[in-house]
């Protein structure tokens, strides 16, 4: 039995218990309070604990994410089904590799790194114990091996190939040839390219255990659990559509990694009632317009969305409509083509985003006309303290439609302001929304701008107004 890696029925009962227990008290607040950060490149965001239970912060079974009791029978069926599949001799008990000795083991941090591999995906997870998991590896020769070495990785507990396209598995061949790997996880779907055959040959040589997963499976990595949300089963017709979709929870912060799945798959996951809500979303399919529907964004409701795409790639990724959907959802967006390698560090106090290059994805793709009105929602500025002296408090009041979700980005010389008080607001019954925030004493004087967005149902308006700091 493979309970070491794939805990099924046992955890199910714990899950039932926790679900029943937590349903009564879990308010699951989403609002993240942004704290003023020392530099604009690092935002520290405190994550509210999803439940007030005094249990360990490492949620082995993220029970609180299953908010609908009626999905329980479905999940139970899935668990039983997988249990049968997994009792085959495919999975053996294997020893967990020792954590890499060069890294501190007790810092209790989870680090998720979106590696800049050009056009492709490669995500490195370092558990609080110092175990490494790699989700996809970019193309062959895209530099993932060098990056792992630079981070002191000596061996990998786990490699996950979300699906067999070369921009996801090519680099995994390099990794398998250069590092000891204990386990390799796939969805079991084959591809008939030589890159895929090289991938299988490299697993054979490495003697890693191959594990095939489907919806309902849990993958244990150290103290953490990766939940498999997709595919329910592999369907012929498109490799992207069968991508493994993973969920990871640690210390109240959650990640969703949807591979390259399409909008149809997203819709199916929503209707299946899966726990999609997550703080940090890996944007599907490199920001292609075929993924990341507005409905999916509304279900995931991410605070941060990170895509991986090559600078100047031939496919036009990320698609500007997708970027705008993400911005309109209220999420902060990062991309490896703009920000380079992006690290997310998670501990008990929340998470921080650390892009290698400080830059803003949003502005590159937003319309520059001022004002720009989309459809029939409007924004009028009622008052703004401008010009304003550095060190004083600025106020902005706008008029839009009642109930609209309004968000602002204050763009200074150093980039988007991270000051407290700039969070999204819901316009009141008269359609007014106001913000009040401190202009840092060290702010560079000049004529800067404020981007204002108002969203109601499917309607969006965006305007940019001048903002002068003296």
């Amino acid at each position, binding site marked *: 039995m493979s309970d070491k890696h794939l805990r099924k029925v046992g955890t199910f009962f714990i899950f039932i218990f926790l679900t029943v227990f937590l349903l009564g008290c879990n308010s699951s607040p989403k609002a993240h309070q942004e704290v003023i950060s020392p530099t604009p490149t690092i935002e520290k965001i405190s994550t509210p604990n999803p439940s007030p239970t005094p249990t360990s912060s490492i949620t082995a079974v993220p029970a609180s994410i299953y908010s609908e009791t009626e999905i329980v029978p479905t999940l139970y069926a899935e668990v039983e089904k997988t249990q049968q599949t997994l009792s085959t001799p495919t999975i053996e008990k294997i020893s967990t590799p020792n954590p890499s000795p060069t890294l501190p083991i007790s810092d209790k941090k989870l680090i998720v790194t979106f590696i800049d591999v050009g056009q492709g995906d490669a995500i490195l997870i370092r558990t609080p114990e110092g175990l490494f998991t790699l989700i996809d590896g970019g193309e062959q020769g895209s530099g993932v091996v060098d990056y792992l070495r630079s981070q002191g990785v000596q061996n990998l507990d786990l490699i996950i190939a979300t699906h067999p*396209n070369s921009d996801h598995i090519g680099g995994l061949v390099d990794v398998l040839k250069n590092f000891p790997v204990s386990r390799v996880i796939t969805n079991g779907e084959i591809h008939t*390219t030589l890159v895929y055959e090289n991938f299988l040959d490299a697993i054979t040589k490495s003697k890693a255990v191959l594990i095939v997963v489907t919806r309902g499976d849990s993958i244990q990595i150290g103290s953490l659990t990766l939940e498999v949300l997709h595919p329910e089963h592999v369907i012929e017709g498109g490799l*992207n559509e069968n991508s493994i979709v993973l969920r990871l929870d640690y210390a109240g912060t959650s990640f969703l990694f949807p591979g390259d799945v399409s909008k149809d798959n997203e819709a199916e996951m929503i209707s299946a009632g899966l726990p999609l809500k997550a703080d940090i979303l890996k944007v599907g399919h490199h920001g292609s317009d075929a993924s990341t529907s507005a409905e999916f964004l509304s279900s995931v409701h991410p605070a941060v969305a990170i895509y991986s795409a090559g600078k100047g790639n031939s496919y036009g990724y990320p698609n500007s409509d997708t970027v705008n959907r993400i911005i309109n959802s209220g999420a902060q967006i990062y991309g490896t083509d703009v920000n380079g390698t992006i690290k997310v560090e998670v501990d008990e106090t929340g998470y921080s985003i650390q892009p290698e290059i400080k830059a803003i994805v949003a502005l590159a793709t937003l319309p520059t006309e001022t004002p720009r009105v989309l459809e029939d929602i409007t924004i009028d500025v009622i008052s703004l303290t401008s010009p304003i002296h550095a060190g004083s408090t600025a106020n902005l009041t706008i008029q839009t439609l009642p109930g609209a979700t309004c968000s602002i980005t204050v763009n200074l010389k150093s980039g988007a302001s991270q000051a407290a008080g700039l969070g999204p607001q819901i316009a009141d019954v008269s359609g007014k929304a106001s913000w009040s925030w401190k202009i840092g004493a060290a702010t560079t004087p000049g004529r800067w701008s404020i981007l204002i967005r108002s969203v109601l149902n499917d309607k969006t308006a965006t305007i940019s107004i001048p903002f002068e700091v003296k």
Partner: protein
Amino acid sequence: MKTKAMIDRFEGDLAVLLVGEQQDRLEVNKSMLPIGAKEGDWLQVEVKDDRVFSATADPKGTADAKNRILDKLGILREGKHKND
């Protein structure tokens, strides 16, 4: 000279081909491909200066690769590679 190539994937109107033993990546417009070409299909292509001049279907190449790869995956799934 003709070379073997496989269709790795489609991205919009482009097909991404993996060419030869080295699996060099080349992008071509879908319209260059034989009608009905799918992900994973093997082709015989004429390439000059990183440009594809012709592409014809190679169903035998596809079928042989599929059999070979299914065998290899079967061995891995059963864990037989650990016994060697």
